[in-house]
């Protein structure tokens, strides 16, 4: 009543044409509306898109893509926009194809343990939809409350429980994809695993939206484990905690999850919305979960507790109820966002290292923190050596953003130097594009961009992401 406003007819022919495809209510083109799309979960680079369209089905996605392709107009796909490496940022003024309106669970086949979802379907909703039948979807990125499975496919998302169950790519059985020229293809239509020929599913999963736009996904669903127990261990010393991680794995135990947080991280989560009451003077905590058939869980828990004691744990305890377990996990899973409570901005890195190098790399990260005079919190999947140094900074202070970027890059260098990698699950996006050179030679990079060019010859789809090119890095610098 008070604030109704009339929709104005857009005059820009591109906007008009796109509006014809998706409908007038499913397109944004005004500056004020577009501004909210200038970044995703990675906020250091920002750029305004040409428009945002909200297709409701595959045909509309294909029509938009065909139009953009025919008019040589850059475009990219976006899910919930929670990505941490900037994969959905419209660096080139792209038309953003938001897939959040395609958010249905299309079918569930319990017999064959698979489900078909649209790309905008929220990760956790899948588990919630099948939980009453005793099933779940394993990949559980910390943003699973809001992130979409389409985005998970693009980034090959991981999560706390990927130590035992594998990352997204291990759970994708089939994809429907709109290629950059608008053609719709199905890969592994019947969802049978290990189809003959090249592993296109593997190629598409984790391609960060540079090879095509996923419009339908067949995923594997799993039966709930019979039993589950969770241990929380407090350490006075980071090295002891790291050694415990190494010993748990080398004892032959495969925990469902093995997470670590250091002192600064604990300060963050305790200041956030889901405090657990962790002591404020411990240097590290481990959150360890074991699941599977009930027989055997008790012994594994006992052995884990013994390993922790061997490494001078201050306190180690088992969750006494599902409620307590839930609180521990909520505290961990909201860890990144909770950094807002202790710092105006943060930059999260995503290095992977051999587990045995954990103490060494953590020492180096501490050195980087001291040198840069920026606090660095560590919340990470210790079990698979996937580090997440969170560099805390204040973008309002001149020069601090650059310092944070440099510190982030140094952390990745520290990982690469011990034979590790620059990303485990967040993707390269814009953020780690230059750091790709830490682990790949020019020839190796070219070989990969050659693959991209087969799918995306004009570079219209999500260009400027994933692989560095000389011209591209100059563009990125300009945006900064």
């Amino acid at each position, binding site marked *: 009543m008070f604030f109704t406003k009339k929709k104005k007819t857009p005059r820009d022919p591109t906007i008009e044409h796109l509006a014809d495809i998706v409908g007038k209510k499913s397109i*944004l083109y005004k500056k004020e509306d577009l501004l*909210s799309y200038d970044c995703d*979960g990675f906020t250091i680079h920002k750029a305004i898109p040409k428009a945002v369209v909200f297709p409701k089905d595959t045909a509309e996605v294909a029509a938009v893509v065909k139009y953009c392709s025919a008019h040589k107009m850059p475009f990219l796909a976006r899910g919930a926009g929670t990505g941490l490496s900037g994969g959905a940022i419209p660096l080139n003024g792209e038309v953003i194809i938001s897939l959040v309106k395609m958010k249905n669970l299309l079918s569930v086949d319990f017999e064959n343990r698979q489900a078909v979802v649209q790309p905008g379907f929220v990760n956790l909703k899948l588990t919630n939809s099948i939980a009453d039948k005793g099933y779940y979807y394993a990949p559980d990125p910390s943003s699973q409350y809001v992130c979409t499975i389409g985005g998970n496919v693009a980034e090959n998302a991981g999560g706390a429980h990927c130590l035992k169950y594998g990352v997204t790519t291990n759970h994708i059985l089939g994809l429907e994809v709109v290629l950059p020229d608008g053609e719709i293809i199905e890969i592994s239509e019947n969802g049978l695993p290990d189809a003959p020929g090249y592993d296109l599913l593997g190629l598409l999963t984790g391609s960060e939206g540079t090879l095509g736009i996923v419009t339908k996904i067949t995923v594997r669903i799993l039966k709930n484990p019979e039993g589950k127990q969770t241990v929380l261990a407090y350490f006075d010393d980071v090295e002891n905690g790291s050694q415990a991680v190494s010993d748990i794995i080398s004892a032959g135990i495969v925990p469902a999850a093995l997470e670590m947080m250091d002192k600064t991280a604990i300060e963050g989560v305790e200041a956030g919305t889901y405090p657990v009451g962790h002591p404020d003077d411990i240097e590290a905590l481990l959150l360890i979960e074991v699941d599977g058939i009930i027989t055997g869980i008790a012994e594994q828990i006992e052995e884990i507790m013994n390993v922790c004691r061997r490494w001078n744990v201050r306190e180690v305890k088992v969750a006494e109820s599902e409620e307590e377990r839930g609180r521990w996990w909520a505290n961990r899973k909201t860890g990144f966002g909770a950094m807002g409570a202790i710092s105006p901005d943060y930059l999260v890195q995503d290095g992977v290292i051999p587990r045995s190098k954990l103490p060494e790399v953590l020492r180096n990260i501490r050195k980087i923190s001291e040198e840069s005079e920026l606090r660095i919190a560590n919340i990470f999947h210790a079990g698979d050596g996937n580090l997440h140094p969170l560099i805390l900074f204040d973008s309002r202070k001149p020069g601090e953003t650059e310092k944070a970027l440099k510190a982030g890059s140094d952390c990745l260098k520290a990982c690469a130097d011990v034979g590790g990698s620059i990303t485990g699950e967040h993707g390269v996006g814009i953020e780690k594009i230059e750091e790709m050179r830490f682990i790949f030679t020019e020839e190796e990079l070219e070989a990969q961009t050659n693959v991209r060019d087969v799918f995306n010859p004009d570079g219209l789809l999500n260009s400027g992401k994933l692989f560095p090119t000389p011209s591209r890095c100059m563009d990125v610098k300009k945006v900064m």
Partner: protein
Amino acid sequence: MAVEMKEQQTNNEPPCTSNSLSNYLWDDHPDEEKWADCVHCGMCLESCPTYLETGQEQHSPRGRVHLIKSVAEGKLEVNEHFMDPVFQCLDCRACTTACPADVDVGGLIEEARGQIRQAMPLKGWKGVVSRLFLKDLFPHKNRLNGVGGILKFYQKSGLQKAVRKSGALKVMPKHLVEMESIMPPIQQSVQKKYKDVDVIPASSKPKARVAMLTGCIMDVMFADINQSTINVLTYNGNEVVLPKNQTCCGALHVHAGDRGTGKKLAKQNIEAFRDAEKVIVNAAGCGCALKEYPELFRNDPEWKEKAEEFTKKVEDISKYLYDTGYEKPHSKLNKRITYHDACHLAHGQGIRHEPRKLLNDINGVEYVEQPNADMCCGSAGIYNITNPEMAGAVLERKMENVPRDVEMISMGNPGCMLQMAIGVQKYGRRAEIVHTVQLLDWAYQQDQKNGLGTSDDKQTIAAREG
């Protein structure tokens, strides 16, 4: 690109000009410290009713925070296109619960609305309607009672029946017709009833004296709930005072961007309840507003301190009973009941299990938890009048979650009660809409009637700490 940037529509010149880039030109502008907490992680998205409905970032909590920040950075102007996302927000605070960093999105929205309303005052009939309700009616008890009298006459005289039969309602907008049809029967205001009583005595051994906020609309449209609240308090050994100078809590004014009137009303209430040790509230929206008075006075140290003192005394009826103990009623209420979390109780005040406990302590109640019980019903103060389309969509989502076979839906906020009543009627449900405290009152009355629950055999639900 067809981006049309409208000139800022200002009626009056801003009081000051500064060299900052900010496009907020008035005092009391959105607080930088509040948005500095937001790291744009997006964990709020799925909690937000307007985002769920539109799928659009600018209608999400982090999107709104981003826009509010952009105005301060000079990237956006305070204009119609900025206003739309800021006023589409239900102010339901679900994002505050979801946010890992406790970003005060509600506070930012209210501050931004304050700026918008100064930059672009409501004109024409919208301005008239808004002034009529917010300035000329809610803050004035006598006028409200006058309206109550008219409504009572409308209902009792047969006029309501006549109007409904005549089809006169057909010419009214649909959402207003829906509202007319669920208008509760008007009872006598408790302020009027107890106007000559200084202290309403406890009906059992007095253990405490509490003051009660009678509210503006509450005491006209829902006087029976006020009466039930008094009954339940006195039954449990509380003497009740109804300070005469109290007024509307100002929540609706602050939500609508009229922070000036909000502050005036806040000051009056802080003064009116100066001598009280406890201020009991039975409307979630009002309780939340009272608890947030310090935020209103964040730039006024003297009143901020007073507001902080005041806020410590404010308590929702369900939490007060839970904390101080209450008699477990004996009589049976054989009903299947579900509970709807009012946003300003669950998200705004963190009160969730206390009212559920009250319900479950009534014998015979078959309690059914509803999925997403803490999702907004779309009432949101007067949002269902200002934004009927979105409010309707949010209500539809809510009703999908309400179990079909419940006989009662209990809650702790009058706005929700009206909205849920519309929902029940519109979607052909049978459930009665009740305030939690009414059920407790009903059970106590049955006890008294049947001579149960007197003196020694009272089974007391022990007081909880703090």
